[in-house]
Every structure is written in C-alpha cells, then in structure tokens.
C-alpha cells in the first residue's frame, strides 16, 4: 500500500469518527483545526454530515410498507424438511405413485399440481401396489426402506401429531400437510439415526399411517 493510500485511509477513519461524533475532545479539536485551514475539507465534512443525518431514515418507507404475500410464503416453513431432501422435478413420479396405490388424483387437479410438486424429493419408483388395495398398514413402506426402530419412532410421532421429536438417538422432523388433492393427509418426514438420513412422505388414511416413499442418504456435516 502506498503512503498516499495510507494517509487517505487514516483520514477516512478520522473523518468518519468525526462526523459520527465518536472522537475524544483532543482528536476532535485537531480535526477542527485542520478544518479551519482547509476549505475543501470543510466541504467534504459538510457533505458527509448531510449524509449521516439522512442515514437512520434510509428507505424507511420499505420498513413501513406491507410485506407482499409471496415473501411471507417464502419465509414460512417449507412443507418438506429443507436441506435434507434431494431435489428433483418428480411431480409426475409422485402422482404415479399415489395413483398406483389407488389413492388417485382428479385429472385436472393432477395436472394443476404438477408445478406444486416440483422440488419434492422422491426417489425410487414405487413398488407394485399389490392386490389393488391402496392402503397399507401403518409403518409399511411402498418404496425404499426404513429401519424398524426408525419406523416405530416415526409412526409414534405421526400419531401424536407433533412436528417432530427425539426418540433415543433417533431425530424426527415432520412437515405440514402437503397440498395434494388426495383423500389423505400426506406429510414430509425426515428421520436421522446412525449417521443416515431418511427423507420421505407418509400419508394417513384410516386406520393408520403409511410410508409412501423413502430416500436414504448419509448425513453430511456442515450442511
């Protein structure tokens, strides 16, 4: 750094402190003296003071304005467990999965929600629905697999209707109801245990919960 730049930086620092009123008496008097000899410096300081006076109110009207709905939506908790999910445009796949299990989607609604489903993490084609029945007893999986202990803990949390919980070393997060036009309460879940994370979707239809799909990945630290 050149000596000029050094001096400039020192001057910036002192001038900033001066216009912010943060100098002690001795330093302030030194700047006052310098100012009295230098009209250019006086103009600089006057301009800086003018700006400092405006700063607390900068863009105040933004703080007073109503926040648009789209931002409120973006700030609200996503329906899926955020960072764990591998993201893919799998709307069609989930629709096929739901249809294959006999839970069906009305055709127009099905088309309309394709956009909604973008971003859902679903991997692995569903296994055959088997027997034509859409319903599986609580805890069974249509795709992927969940360790039995994790399954028990997840079903417990789902049945209690809480947003998540910790069962021993198993951490569970459950999202809000997914906006699916199906006759069932479907939710994202994330189960973490033994260094593995299982992301999936579970749906409730009497008399219990079914795990529709699961994707397992290693827990990455520092995500």
């Amino acid at each position, binding site marked *: 750094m050149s000596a000029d730049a050094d001096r*400039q*930086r020192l001057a*910036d*620092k002192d*001038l*900033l402190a001066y*216009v912010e009123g943060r100098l002690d008496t001795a330093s302030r008097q030194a700047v006052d003296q310098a100012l009295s000899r230098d009209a250019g410096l006086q103009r*600089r300081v*006057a*301009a*800086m*003071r*003018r*700006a*400092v006076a*405006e*700063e*607390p*109110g*900068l*863009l105040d*009207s*933004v*703080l007073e*304005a*109503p*926040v*648009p*709905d*789209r*931002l*409120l939506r*973006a*700030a*609200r*908790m*996503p329906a899926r467990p*955020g*960072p764990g999910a591998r*993201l893919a*445009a799998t709307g069609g796949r989930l629709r096929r999965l739901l249809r294959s299990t006999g839970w069906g989607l009305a055709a127009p609604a099905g088309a309309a929600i394709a*956009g909604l489903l*973008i*971003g859902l993490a679903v991997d692995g084609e569903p296994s055959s629905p088997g027997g034509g029945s859409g319903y599986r007893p609580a805890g069974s999986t249509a795709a992927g697999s969940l360790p039995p202990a994790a399954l028990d803990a997840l079903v417990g949390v789902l049945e209690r209707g809480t*947003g*998540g919980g910790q069962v021993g070393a198993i951490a569970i*997060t459950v999202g809000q109801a997914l906006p699916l036009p199906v006759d069932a309460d479907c939710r994202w879940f994330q189960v973490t245990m033994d260094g593995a994370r299982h992301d999936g979707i579970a749906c409730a239809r009497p008399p219990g919960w079914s795990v529709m799909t699961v994707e397992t990945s290693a827990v990455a630290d*520092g*995500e």
Partner: protein
Amino acid sequence: MIDRKGFERALLERLPRMRRFAISLTGTVAEGDDLVQSACERAWRRRRSLRDPERLDSWLFQIIRHVWIDQRRGPEARVDPEDPVTFHDLAGGDAERELEARLSLDRTFAAMLRLPAEQRAVLLLVGAEGYAYREAAAILDIPIGTVMSRLARAREALGRLLEDAQDSPARETGS
C-alpha cells in the same frame, strides 16, 4: 440451533429489513423482492449452517448478498443446483407497486441510486442498520479498511448529491 418454528418466526420478523437491504442493492422493489424470496428459500435450505443464533441477522444479510452476486453473474449461473425450481410472481402485486411509487418520490433514495451498489450496501448496513465497521466487513466479506473508504466516499457523494438537489430549484420535487 434454532428450531423450525423459531426460525420461521425470526425470518418473518426480519422480512422488512431484508427487503430494505435487498432493495438498496437492486434499486427496484420488484428485483429486491425477488432477491428476498430467493434468499428465504436458501436460508431454509442452509438453516443448519447457522451455528450461532445471535448472528442470524448478519447471516441473512450475507445470504442476500450471495444470492445477489449469483444473480448478477448472469442467467447461466443463476440456478443453484440445490435450488428447487420456483416461479416468482411475474408481476408484482399492488403492495409492491405502491411501494415503488412511494420510493420514486424519495429523493434520498434517488441520490443513493447514483452511488455504486457496493457503496450503497455499506451505507445501509452501517448508517441504517447500525452495524459496526467490523460487522459490516464480515457481512460483505471485505477488509474493514475497504468498509471505511467506501463509507467515506459514499457519504461524501450522497451529501453532495443532496446539497445539489436542494440548491437547484429545477430539481425540487416539493417533498
């Protein structure tokens, strides 16, 4: 770590200030709100990287700045592979248009827009948000000396622009 409910509450509370910072960077309400929307989505995905909840504010400003830099790199770089595909509103709502109209009458904002965006960011963080130089330097990922030189230049330029606007009757807008 903040739980999901607490994180949501904190994010909702901070939206007005996130908007103010974003609009100071982009210069328009619509672009600023796009930026905040993307930043919220990224904040949710990276929630676990927030180690210290006390630093939530500066963490959010950092995310806004990073998204803004990514977006300025051009359309090719615009898509973060982790970003879900989202459709931002094509046209801003009434609330955004009304704010845009209000801002068009804000002479200080008009003068501020004539400064480089890097200077506007320092001005907003230090002058309006009240961050110490050191904290502003951390948010903007620049040396503290750069914060000071940008702030000094920004204040001087803004002050002169405001003086000129006041001295020139032709530019009086009757605020």
